[in-house]
């Protein structure tokens, strides 16, 4: 491993790691060497700007400190006349063509070029000739403006595009001092991460249209928080002026986001002030005071009693914890869940949560192999897409992709395999079986394409990170068991730097489960049995989300609390949810925005956004992070923890919570493996509970033989599990939708196609409520393989009706070469023609018919 060495910088001894760049070592030794092009996040140094030239004894020429690895005993000078002269010369050169239009430049006051010019420059320019001119500013994309006159050609944005996002759209065109940053044929730079270039730009050349001329650095405050728009939970800083968020920028946390933000997190802030925002509580009749709303909600809940239920989604740990206390303690109802669909039982959840099986985000960087199963990070946890690319590009990690739908990571993968929608479990069982048997991979897999290749990638690796999508659990517990079998076959629990990393459906899914928002587990994933823990009058195990829906429809459940979820948009089977919400006697909805669901509610409470909220969330890798209030709450919005505590009070139940710190303290007390975590321990970067001593308080999962135990998993899971684990010598049949033999592939023009759905990155309110993002709003389209399109006599752009058992949506045809025959894909969560309308909990086949327009 790397050796600790000592170097001498400006007469001062600095401890360094052999091989690290001199610039970084100097920085830690409190010696500032100015740089423009150097940014370790972007990978290898390029040494282009020449700003960081320093003198190293024994080397005649000045060296760029950004690209010089340190050696033991190196003697460096950064303030000699020779160095000062060179650095001053570089600043003078940089300003030769820079317009110095600081008074009208957005970067003014937070501009590295300004700072370095003042600190290291000559103070005045000897250049009296005309500078180069470009049209300014022009649209690089609908979100980013480029001012090429200000550009100092530091290469950062281009390197981001080529080596981080790997979209390669940004290029340097022309050469010499005529060089400029642009795209092929002046096309707009469209990439879901492209906003990062505005953070990277060390001058005012790249600015966001959403922030141009909105504020000066001295008008604003930077407030650190965590983005809770997806499970990536990236760290960010909000730029706040007059209590309003004006900008979001990255707040580097290598354990979480590596210093990047996706454009959703970056530009999704104008919705905080959207017209559709719920800004005050209301009843069916209209806006009411808080007291009236809480009284009405309490009355409705009391009426529901043990027949009340709650589903929690966009919520902090404390909020989830309080909701389950209201249900369980105040109402005696066990019916609480935090999943949009079916999920595994407590025991399986516990097995997945074991610290030795849990991978850190950072471990992706050094993994020998990465298995991506049942998820496309670009859509479901975008920042992990960059992380996986980094692992492949910089450390040669091998990626195996096993998904229903082609992913953006297929291109660099060592093995790619497709299974038919809803067949992840079957694939995993087969993989586990193959991994457990000895012999060469090819001899172990009879027919299935892809599986041996995936197995080979995983088996040859010392460390494996398995990134899996929560939605494989919708197939039933058997698929999660199969996933655990794979980890067992690979012995991940014992391998350093290996483990599972989940990409859940909801941003704080892990936190909510651990806070007790599961039908069969309380805070800390404790077990609920027939004899409830002290203080609880709850009986037995609650109904998971989909059973709640059925029970509402049948009248078995009376009252429903929806906290930060919109079932009519985001949950499968829209029609059934519509019936269920209509059938409910009382519907209490906590929501940030007006939705189809709030329109049906009896009581609506406003929610805070992640710019306003104070609370903690738990990253899928177990990291507790703090969401901090950064901006003012619009209208009459109150802190959610307070509203919930008051609601409990109104129900005659004193939670003892009277502040956010007390809510957090109650949570850490209730969740044994969060015990003792303090706000200062979370601090700016968060803390993984698995890395603390209290982690040992995580309950142990039961032995697999106790699966008959009181409803810990619904019977149908157990049945499937038994079938799957039966002694049958052949693995379960997989209905493959790959090339070649497709036993169940449809034939004939009218044969149905198997429907797969996915949540597109841009499908959802984000592109409707943020005007700058509207251009990204996806229209429903159905993806077909070329063969199916031909069979159905469809061509790209045709409008079709996709129908299933009475429900149908309209979509435009897209033909994708990489799609297998016999399957098609629709987007969930679109504003119109939402694919959730067609889903009903089981794999669905659809008929596609052309619509004459």
């Amino acid at each position, binding site marked *: 491993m790397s050796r600790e060495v000592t170097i001498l910088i400006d007469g001062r001894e600095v401890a360094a790691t052999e091989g690290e760049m001199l610039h970084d070592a100097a920085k830690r030794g409190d010696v500032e060497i100015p740089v423009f092009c150097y940014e370790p996040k972007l990978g290898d140094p390029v040494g282009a700007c*020449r700003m960081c030239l320093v003198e190293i004894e024994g080397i005649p020429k000045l060296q760029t400190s950004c690209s010089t690895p340190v050696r033991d005993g190196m003697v460096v000078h950064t303030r000699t006349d020779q160095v000062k002269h060179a650095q001053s010369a570089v600043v003078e050169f940089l300003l030769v*063509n820079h317009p110095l239009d600081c008074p009208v430049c957005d970067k003014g006051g937070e501009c590295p070029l300004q700072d370095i010019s003042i600190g290291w420059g000559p103070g005045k320019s*000897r250049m009296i000739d005309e500078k*180069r001119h470009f049209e300014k500013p022009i649209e690089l994309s609908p979100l980013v403006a480029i001012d090429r006159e200000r550009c100092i050609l530091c290469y950062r944005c281009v390197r981001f595009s080529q080596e981080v996002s790997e979209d390669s759209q940004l290029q340097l065109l022309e050469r*010499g*001092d005529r060089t400029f940053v642009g795209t092929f044929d002046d096309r707009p730079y469209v990439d879901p991460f492209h906003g990062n270039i505005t953070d990277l730009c060390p001058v005012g050349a790249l600015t966001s249209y959403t922030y141009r001329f909105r504020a000066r650095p001295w008008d604003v405050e930077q407030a650190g928080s965590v983005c809770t728009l997806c499970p990536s939970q990236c760290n960010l800083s909000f730029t706040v002026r007059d209590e309003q968020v004006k900008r979001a920028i990255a707040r580097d946390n290598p354990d979480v986001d590596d210093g990047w933000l996706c454009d959703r997190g970056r530009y999704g802030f104008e919705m905080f002030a959207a017209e559709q925002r719920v800004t005050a509580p209301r009843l069916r009749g209209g806006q009411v005071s808080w007291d009236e709303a809480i009284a009405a909600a309490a009355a409705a809940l009391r009426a529901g009693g043990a027949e009340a239920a709650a589903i929690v989604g966009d919520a902090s740990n404390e909020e989830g914890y309080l909701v389950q206390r209201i249900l369980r303690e105040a109402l005696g109802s066990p019916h609480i869940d935090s999943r949009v669909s079916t999920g595994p039982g407590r025991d399986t959840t516990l097995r997945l949560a074991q610290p030795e099986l849990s991978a850190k985000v950072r471990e992706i960087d050094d993994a020998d192999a990465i298995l991506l199963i049942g998820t496309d990070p670009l859509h479901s946890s975008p920042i992990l897409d960059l992380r996986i690319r980094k692992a492949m590009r910089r450390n040669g990690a091998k990626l195996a992709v096993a998904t229903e739908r082609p992913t953006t990571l297929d291109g660099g993968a060592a093995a790619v395999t497709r299974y038919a929608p809803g067949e992840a479990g079957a694939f995993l069982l087969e993989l586990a079986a193959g991994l457990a048997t000895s012999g060469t991979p090819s001899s172990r897999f009879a027919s299935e394409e892809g599986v041996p290749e995936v197995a080979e990638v995983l088996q040859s690796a010392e460390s494996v990170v398995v990134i899996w999508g929560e939605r494989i659990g919708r197939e039933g517990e058997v698929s999660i068991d199969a996933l655990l079998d794979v980890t067992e076959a690979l012995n991940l629990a014992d391998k350093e730097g290996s483990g599972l990393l989940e990409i859940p459906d909801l941003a704080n899914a892990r936190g909510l489960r651990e806070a007790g928002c599961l039908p069969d587990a309380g805070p800390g994933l404790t077990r609920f049995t027939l004899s409830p823990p002290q203080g609880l009058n709850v009986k037995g195990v609650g109904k998971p989300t989909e059973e709640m829906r059925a029970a509402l429809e049948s009248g078995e459940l009376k009252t429903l609390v929806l906290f930060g979820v919109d079932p009519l948009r985001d949950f499968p089977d829209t029609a059934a949810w519509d019936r269920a919400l209509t059938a409910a006697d009382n519907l209490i909805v906590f929501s940030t925005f007006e939705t189809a669901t709030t329109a049906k509610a009896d009581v609506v409470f406003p929610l805070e956004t992640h710019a306003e909220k104070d609370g903690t969330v738990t990253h899928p890798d177990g990291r507790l992070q703090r969401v901090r209030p950064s901006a003012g709450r619009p209208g009459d919005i109150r802190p959610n923890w307070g509203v919930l505590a008051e609601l409990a009070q109104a129900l005659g139940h004193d939670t003892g919570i009277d502040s956010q710190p007390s809510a957090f303290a109650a949570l850490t007390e209730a969740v044994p493996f969060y015990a003792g975590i303090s706000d200062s321990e979370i601090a700016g970067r968060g803390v993984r509970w698995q890395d603390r001593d209290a982690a040992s308080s995580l309950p142990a999962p039961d032995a697999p033989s106790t699966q008959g135990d009181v409803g810990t998993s619904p019977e149908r899971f157990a049945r499937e599990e038994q079938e799957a684990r039966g002694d049958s010598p052949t693995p379960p049949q997989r209905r493959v939708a790959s090339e070649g033999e497709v036993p169940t592939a449809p034939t004939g023009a009218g044969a149905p196609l198997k429907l797969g759905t996915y949540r597109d990155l841009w499908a959802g309110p984000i592109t409707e409520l943020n005007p700058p993002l509207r251009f990204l709003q996806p229209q429903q389209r159905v993806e077909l393989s070329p063969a199916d399109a031909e069979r159905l006599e469809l061509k790209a752009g045709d409008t079709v009706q996709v129908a299933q058992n009475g429900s149908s949506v309209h979509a435009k045809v897209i033909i994708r070469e990489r799609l297998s025959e016999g399957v098609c894909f629709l987007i969930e969560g679109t504003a119109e023609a939402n694919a959730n309308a067609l889903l009903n909990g089981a794999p669905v086949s659809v008929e596609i018919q052309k619509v004459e327009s």
Partner: protein
Amino acid sequence: MAETRVLLKHAEDPQLRTLAGYKRHGGYQTLEKAYREMEAEEILKELEDSGLRGRGGAGFSMGKKASFLPRGEMAKYLCCNADESEPGAFKDRELMQRNPHQLIEGIAIAAIAADAGHAFIFIRGEYDAQADILDAAVAEAYEAGYLGEDILGSRRDLELVVHRGAGAYICGEETALLDALEGKRGNPRLKPPFPAVQGLYGGPTLINNVETLSNVPRIVAHGAEWFRGYGTEQSPGTKVVSVSGCVRRPGNYEVELGVPTRELIYDLAGGPLDGREVKAFYPGGSSSPVLTAEDLDLPYTFEDMAEAGSMLGSGSIVVADDSVSIPLMALRTARFYHHESCGKCTPCREGTNWTVKMLERVVRGEATPMDLDIISSVQDNIMGHCLCVLGDSMAMPVSAMVKKFRGEFEAVIDSAQAVAA
């Protein structure tokens, strides 16, 4: 004075460029010997002992460079730099045009020393006719079994590709050449790592100039001692020198290194026209600091040119007689480098551009003597601060011209101001 033709031997035979013609003059015998009988170490030793210095400009020992390549199983590459673009240099063009097989044979033998399985000739895009000739010669060599798989039963493979550049001078810089070969924008890379360690596609790569590689067959055939029989101790061998500018017979002349520069310019190239005198000359292409008439008697070697504050470079002499305006020559030179600067590093990108603007003002008479100080200072600020040598390539000659001919610059400024006044 007469030429010493080694590389250009038989160059007058139009059939030399064919395989048959080349073989008639003894061609490919060394390759056969090398592939059948010699080990990499033997060849490497011969090259190192010969003292052959790179003919592309830097003058680094070819054998030493080849010895830097790590041994091992990884894919290694050999690149022939035929991107001859320096103003004043045209010797590689003639070597490729007249004797392409000599180069191919040199590449094939050097590939043994470098243990390279793939070789590329990166040829300047404008050298269209020469690229066609090389293509034909390479095809012939493949046909004859001198290239391809299992060459002459040696179990060594060599694939040779002629790649045409797209017209950028910077691609003659070895790392920019590698980027361009890889299909990227031709920009220089940071060094280290040096190409010998991490070059083309990340593999160890030996990069040599056309003339350097053309020397290889004879060195291996006749031995290092034979080669050292020509030239001086520090500059052994012969050199094809391109002489151009204000001379009567511009052209390529092959001479032993160490001949007096005056003889090259006056005897071989015929010197300036009657009544004219040599005022200044570039001894090694337009990137070398200019020398003056006083330096004409220096022996033409790497070491003597360096001692005079200039360099032998690619061995291209450009002569300016007393009819030439030095400020205009400086502007012309600066414009070339401004046009060819890749733009990657700041001092070169901005320094070349600024220098051109200042020299334009000088020539237009819109400058003051203070501007001459700024021009000099800007050249100082470029030198040694750039990512590659292109910036220095402008700064060195321009700086030398302002220093050595300051009076002439001042006279231009004064006369223009006199007209204005």
